[in-house]
């Protein structure tokens, strides 16, 4: 419990302090320090969970499923803050934003971390909703940080779409609560996920169906499922790059996590009805559509950050599909994919940040010859994209391997769709990537002072995961799989 409190209080206090802290260079370091502390707490928590199993309390429940996401969140938070310190200083020095905005940035960064961790660790659907909505509010200001017309527009769209979506999710939550009223002895516990999960089979299926639709559309908006995804590329492309990294790396995961939690309830409730796999089917449908559509979007990109945000949509679609598919193999693969995707994607965004800094623009057709000008950046980008495209020995390949084989075994036709989608997405990525990294560099393009440590850490981890999955992680994922599907894989 102490670990949990530490985990949540650290970003809270850190955020408040950062909101008041004046000296800028100190703020960057403090941000890093707070993130590190959070990571420490997260690791401690993970260790506790690994030893004692589930940590439950009023409003809180930490099990294998969310603890590894907690660690992942804290970890990406650290690496991104390593990157963001010099990067944001450069941005500030270039006069794009004021010192005040810097304070907003840092405090909101921590606030975002707080909401993420809260959403992950809470056991209460209501609090979950509050946290996710809070994440929206925390990030929306960051999206409009640069105050350019595009930034404001992106922020507005982000705000409106996610606000509406999240409101729908709240309605779903209310309906769930409504269904719980009639089965729960204590109405107050009607939003406690674990309590609901135990008695899921008694929940009124009709209500739960409707509730699930609302929750799916609501949280799905935040996952970035087509056709509620439109906010995602805008927000990613216009916000500061570290923000894009954590948005892609963390926020989407958390939203998907929420969807999965809800799906577990609905599955329990619908188990006895005529359509036991309704939730799974809906997830598969959304997943496939998002996957294919996003892959097609990749072909018509002009902005490098938009491109990679579409690739995030594509991968979220893949995971959603896998969770919908169910079964231990697919679920294991999906969990692993969550992990490697957020690691890889945040690494890519960090690299992209340097690349845009190098080229002075985000326009793809003006970023040229990166390998010539600065091999480190060029190769990092190349390898990152190679990893995200699912090439071994990187971890994304492992998860996609599991997903594809699982699909081939249960739904062969979807496997064909997946194959096509992967090919299309691959072509879309590389047709734009090639001219950026290869070829001659434009006149007078100078190397920039880049800090690629986070990239190396992330890619190194992904590589490690691709070569061999360490036992403790395997046990985690397996326990999570067991929680979700009720079956062990190992």
């Amino acid at each position, binding site marked *: 419990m102490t670990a949990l409190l530490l985990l949540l209080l650290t970003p809270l206090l850190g955020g408040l302090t950062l909101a008041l802290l004046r000296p800028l260079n100190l703020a960057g370091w403090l941000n890093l320090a707070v993130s590190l502390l959070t990571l420490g707490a997260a690791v401690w928590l993970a260790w506790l969970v690994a030893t004692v199993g589930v940590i439950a309390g009023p*409003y809180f429940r930490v099990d294998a499923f969310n603890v590894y996401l907690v660690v992942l969140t804290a970890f990406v938070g650290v690496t991104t803050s390593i990157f963001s310190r010099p990067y944001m200083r450069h941005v500030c020095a270039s006069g794009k934003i004021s010192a005040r905005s810097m304070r907003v940035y840092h405090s909101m960064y921590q606030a975002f971390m707080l909401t993420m961790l809260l959403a992950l660790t809470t056991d*209460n659907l*209501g*609090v979950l*909703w*509050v946290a996710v*909505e*809070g994440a929206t*509010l925390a990030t*929306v*200001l960051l999206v*409009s940080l640069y*105050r*350019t*017309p*595009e930034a*404001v*527009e*992106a*922020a*507005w*769209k982000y*705000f*409106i779409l996610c*606000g*509406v979506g999240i*409101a*729908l999710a*709240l*309605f779903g939550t*209310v*309906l769930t*609560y*409504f269904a719980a*009223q*009639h089965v729960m002895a204590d*109405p*107050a516990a*009607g*939003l406690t996920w674990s309590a609901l999960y135990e008695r899921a089979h008694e929940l*009124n299926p*009709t*209500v739960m169906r*409707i509730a699930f639709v609302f929750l799916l559309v609501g949280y799905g908006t935040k996952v970035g499922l087509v056709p509620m995804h439109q906010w995602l*590329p*805008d927000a990613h*492309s*216009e916000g500061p790059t570290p923000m894009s990294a954590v948005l892609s790396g963390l926020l989407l995961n958390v939203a998907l996590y929420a969807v999965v939690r809800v799906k577990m309830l609905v599955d329990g409730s619908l188990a006895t009805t005529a359509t036991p796999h309704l939730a799974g089917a809906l997830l598969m449908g959304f997943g496939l559509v998002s996957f294919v559509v996003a892959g097609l*979007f990749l*072909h*018509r*990109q*002009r902005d490098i950050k938009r491109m990679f945000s579409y690739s995030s949509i594509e991968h979220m679609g893949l995971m959603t599909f896998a969770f919908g598919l169910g079964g231990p193999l697919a679920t294991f693969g999906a969990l692993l994919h969550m992990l490697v995707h957020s690691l890889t994607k945040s690494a890519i965004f960090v690299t992209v940040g340097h690349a845009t800094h190098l080229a002075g623009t985000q326009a793809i057709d003006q970023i040229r010859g990166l390998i010539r000008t600065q091999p480190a950046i060029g190769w990092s980008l190349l390898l990152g994209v190679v990893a995200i495209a699912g090439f071994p020995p990187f971890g994304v390949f492992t998860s996609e391997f599991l997903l594809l084989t699982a699909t081939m075994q249960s739904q062969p036709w979807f496997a064909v769709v997946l194959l096509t989608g992967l090919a299309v997405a691959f*072509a879309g990525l590389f*047709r734009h990537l090639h001219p950026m990294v290869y070829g001659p560099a434009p006149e007078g393009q100078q190397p920039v002072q880049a800090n690629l440590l986070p990239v190396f850490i992330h890619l190194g981890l992904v590589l490690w995961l691709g070569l061999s999955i360490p036992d403790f992680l395997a046990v985690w994922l397996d326990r999570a799989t067991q929680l979700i599907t009720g079956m062990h894989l190992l």
Partner: protein
Amino acid sequence: MTLTVLTLLQQFVLLLAALVLFLSFVLLAQPRLIAAIHLFAWQGALIAAVTLTVALAGHAHHLYFSALLTLVLKALLIPWMLHRLVRRLGLERHTEALRWPALAMMAGVALVIFSYWLVVPMVEQGLAFTRNIVAVSLAVVLIGLLMMVLRQQAVAQVLGFMSMENGLFLAAVSATAGMPLVVELGVAFDVLVAMVLFGVFFFQIRESIDSLDVDRLNRLTETVDNEDLIQ
């Protein structure tokens, strides 16, 4: 289901719910911003009244508090903030007519019928009363969303958003005798912050496109001809 089987308070709740629904229709069609804000305030007041009634009926004590919360937040604070914003944005006189009001109304009616049809299947375990409340609040939510779709004026969109929230509150209090207090507080806090942020954004939008017409926020889109794939 006939009204006779219901208690007076329940009948009162139904009446209020009907009024809420009616108000969101009017809100949908109301061209003048100021008037719309007032309507929204009234809607909030009605929600508060519903909460109070339910509290009286069910002797759920924390509902008194949430009734008060609702009243302060939805009927007073948010409308006041909106009013202030509108004045500072100089939009008192602003009117925005829907293109086809009648069509919008029809769509709203269709949504009401749809949401009723949707909840009809839940008949068992005496959901009869709450079921209809749920239908109404669902309708309110959907109409709010419809309003956001139809109105191109940022403030109006926010109003739509807020009336969606009203629908949620209605469902929460009437169908489930109120959410746990923590959640209530959290939601209220979020709504408030959201409102503040909306205020900030009105100004940012206006300074970027010197207007609040969201249709003019269309810079970020994907329409360009790339070269052929095999080139």
